[in-house]
C-alpha cells in the first residue's frame, strides 16, 4: 500500500474529545502526525475578561470536564494572589480534598477510557461504576456531578455536610479494594504487556524539552510533582510520596497513575481526619462586597463600574490530574480580571505528539493517546 494521510478525528473513538489527528501512514506504520486542535475553542480567556472574578469559576468547570474542581482551584489560587486575599485554613483543606477526589475521579475516567482503547471492555464499566461514588460525594456538597461551581475567591461556597467524613471514608475503603482488581485485569494479562510495553516511549530529556508534565514526565523517571516541589494550599502539611516509574512507556504511565490514585487515598485519609476535627469558617472575612456575595450582580451597569482596588498580578501552578496547570491573572483594579491566561498540561503533552507516535503502528495510536489522557476542553479552552 502506498503512503496516505488519514484523518483520525474530529469524530473518532480514539480522540476522547473533539480534535483531529492527521496521520501519514505506510501500510500500518505511522510516518508522520499532525494534531489539529481548535474544534472545542470557546474563548474562555476572552469571556473571562468580561466577567466578575467569581463568575469565571463557572467557566473553569468547562475547561476540563473531568477535572473541574482542580481547575477551579487553579484559577482561585491565582485570583487570590492577584486580589491580595488569604483564605481560611479550613477552606484550603476542603480545596485539597476536592482536588484529590477529583484526581481519583479523573484517573478512573482515564483508566476506563484507556482500557477500552486496547479492547478491554469489562474494566471500562468497572471504572464508570466506581467513578460514580466519587461523583456522589461531590454531589453531596456541591450539588452537581460535573459542573460544580464550588470554589470562591476567598474560600469555598459552603461547608461540607456533617455526613461527609463517614461517606468519604467508605468510598476510600471501597476504592482501595477496587484498585487491586484493576491491576489484576490489566497487569495480570500478558496481552496487555504485549500491547503496552516499550510503546510510545518519551524519554526524560524529550519530555522536558517539549514541556511534557504530569504522569507522562514522572513515568520517565523524573520525580517532579508541584504538590511536593512548590506546595500550594496545605500540601506541605500532608504526607505522601510522588509516584515515579522508569519505563517512559505506556505501561509506566499506567503504573504512575495507579500509584497516584493510591497516594491520593493516603492524602485524603489525612485531610478527612483534619476536617473532622477542625471546624471553622470557610470564607475569608473583609472581602469586597461584590466578592462576598454568592453571585455577583450582573447587568449592563455592572460592566461599566470602575472602582479602584489594589492592582496585582497572580500566578498559580497546580498539579492537575493530567499534569502541571498554570494560571496567570492580571488585576487592573476593576471587578473583572484584565487578562487571564491558562496553561493546559495536555496542550503541551499533545504538542509533542510527533515525538511519541512516529514509528509505531496504527493500532498503537489508541493506547499511546489513551496513556496521554487527552481532555480537549482544557487544550482548546
Amino acid at each position, binding site marked *: 500500500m502506498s503512503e496516505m494521510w488519514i484523518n483520525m478525528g474530529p469524530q473518532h473513538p480514539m480522540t476522547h474529545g473533539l480534535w483531529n489527528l492527521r496521520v501519514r501512514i505506510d501500510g500500518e506504520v505511522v510516518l508522520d502526525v499532525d494534531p489539529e486542535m481548535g474544534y472545542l475553542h470557546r474563548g474562555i480567556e476572552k469571556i473571562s475578561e468580561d466577567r466578575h472574578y467569581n463568575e469565571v469559576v463557572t467557566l473553569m468547570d468547562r475547561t476540563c470536564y473531568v477535572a473541574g474542581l482542580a481547575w477551579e482551584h487553579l484559577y482561585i489560587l491565582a485570583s487570590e494572589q492577584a486580589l491580595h486575599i488569604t483564605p481560611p485554613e479550613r477552606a484550603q483543606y476542603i480545596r485539597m480534598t476536592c482536588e484529590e477526589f477529583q484526581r481519583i475521579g479523573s484517573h478512573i475516567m482515564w483508566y476506563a477510557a484507556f482500557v477500552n482503547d486496547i479492547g478491554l471492555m*469489562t474494566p471500562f464499566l468497572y471504572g464508570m461504576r466506581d467513578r460514580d461514588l466519587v461523583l456522589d460525594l461531590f454531589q453531596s456538597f456541591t450539588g452537581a456531578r460535573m459542573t460544580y461551581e464550588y470554589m470562591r475567591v476567598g474560600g469555598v461556597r459552603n461547608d461540607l455536610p456533617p455526613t461527609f467524613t463517614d461517606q468519604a471514608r467508605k468510598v476510600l475503603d471501597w476504592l482501595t479494594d477496587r484498585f487491586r482488581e484493576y491491576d489484576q485485569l490489566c497487569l495480570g494479562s500478558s496481552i496487555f504487556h504485549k500491547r503496552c510495553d516499550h510503546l510510545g516511549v518519551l524519554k526524560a530529556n524529550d519530555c522536558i524539552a517539549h514541556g511534557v508534565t504530569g504522569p507522562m514526565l514522572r513515568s520517565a523517571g523524573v520525580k517532579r510533582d508541584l504538590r511536593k516541589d512548590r506546595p500550594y494550599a496545605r500540601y506541605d502539611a500532608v504526607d505522601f510520596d510522588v509516584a515515579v516509574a522508569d519505563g517512559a512507556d505506556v505501561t509506566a504511565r499506567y503504573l504512575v497513575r495507579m500509584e497516584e490514585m493510591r497516594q491520593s487515598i493516603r492524602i485524603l485519609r489525612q485531610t478527612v481526619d483534619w476536617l473532622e476535627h477542625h471546624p471553622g469558617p470557610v470564607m475569608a472575612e473583609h472581602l469586597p462586597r461584590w466578592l462576598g456575595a454568592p453571585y455577583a450582580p450582573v447587568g449592563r451597569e455592572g460592566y461599566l463600574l470602575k472602582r479602584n482596588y489594589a492592582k496585582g498580578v497572580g500566578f498559580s501552578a497546580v498539579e492537575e490530574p493530567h499534569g502541571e496547570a498554570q494560571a496567570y491573572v492580571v488585576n487592573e483594579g476593576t471587578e473583572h480580571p484584565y487578562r487571564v491566561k491558562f496553561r493546559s498540561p495536555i496542550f503541551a503533552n499533545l504538542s509533542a505528539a510527533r515525538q511519541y507516535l512516529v514509528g509505531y503502528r496504527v493500532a498503537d495510536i489508541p493506547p499511546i493517546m489513551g496513556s496521554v489522557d487527552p481532555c480537549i476542553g482544557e487544550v482548546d479552552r
Partner: protein
Amino acid sequence: MSQATLYSVSYDLSNTIASALGSVLPSGARDLITSSGVVTGFAVVIFAVIILAATMLNTILLIWWERKLLGRFMDRRGAMHVGFAGLLQNFADGFKLFRKDTVKPREADPLGFYFGPTAYMITSLAIFGILPISSGWDTGALPLTLLLALAIFAFAPLFIFVSAWSSNNKYSLMGGMRSAAQMIAYEVPLLLAVVSVVIVAGSFDLNTIVYEQQNYWFWGPLILALIVFVAAMLAEMERIPFDLPEAEAELVEGWNTEYGGMFFAFFMFTDYLRALVGSVLVVLLFFGGWTLPSWVPSVATSWPLAGIFWFMVKTYIVFGVFVWIRASLPRVRTDQLLRVGWNRMIPLGLVSVFVAALLVVAKCVWPFGCLPTP
C-alpha cells in the same frame, strides 16, 4: 414408528398440507398436488424454511445470550426492558435497523457495496444447510460435509474485502486488508486442527465424526487440536482478542464503517452466524455432538428431541466461553496476531496431527478408552 428425522418431519408436513389442499380442489388439481414429485419438492422447501428459521432464531438468541453474559461479567444486567429479561431486545433492534435507510457514500461502487454484505450473509447461512444437529436431523449422509462447511466458511474474506474496497473509505480498506490477512493466516491452523480430528475419525462426514466419539470425546486426547481450533476460530470469527479488523479504537468500525441500516444488520447478523457455526463445529468435532457420555442415565436422552436439546446446551456453553474470553482479554495487534498464527499455531497444529496419527495406530489410550470398531 421409526425415529423422526428432519426430512421425515418435512415430508409428513408436506403430505398433510397437500392432502388438505387436495380435498377442497377439483380432481385434476388434486392429482397434481398429491403427486409424489410435488409433495417431495414441497417437502424440500419446508425443510429449507425450517432450517432457515431455526438458524435465524438461534442466532438472535445467541446475541441475547452474549449480551446477558457480557452484562453479568461487567457487573450489570444487560438488556432488561423489551420482553422477559430482554429476550425481545434483539428483535426490536432488528426492526429498528430494518426501518433505517442505508446511506451509500457517493463515491462508493454500488455493485460491490450491496453485493458484499448480501453474499457474506447468504454463504454463511448456507453452511447451516449441511450441519447435522442431531441424529437424523441433517440433509442426509453427504460424505464430505465437514470439508464443504469449511470451504463455504472460507469464502468470507473475499466478500469482506469486496465490500471494504467498494466502500471507498480508508478505514474500511484497512479493516478489509487486516481481515483478509488474518483469515487467510488462520485458515491453515484451522484446517490442521480439523485434519487431526479427521484422521482419528477416519471420515469427513460429521455424522461419522460424532459417531466415532461414542467411547470418548476427542477433546481429551486431541487437546492441542482443540486449542488450535478455538484460537483459529476466534480469529475467523473476528472476536476479541482477535477483532482487529473492526478494532473500534483505531479503525472506527473496520470494514463495515460505511454501512448502516439493513446492510449493517446483515454484517452484524452474519458475524453471529459465523460465531454460531464456530461453536457448533467445536461441539461436533470435540465434544461429541448431540451424544452424552455413557455413564449419564438414559433418562436424560430417552425423550424426543433430547439430542437437539443437549446439542444446543453444549453449543451455548461453548459460545459462553467465547464471551468470557471477550470480557477478559484485550485486543492484540495485527503483526502480533500474524506472528502467533504462523509461528505458534501452525507448529502446534502439525504436532496435533502427529498426535492424531499416534492415536489411530494405538487404537486404545488410557484413560480415555478405545475407538469404536467399525
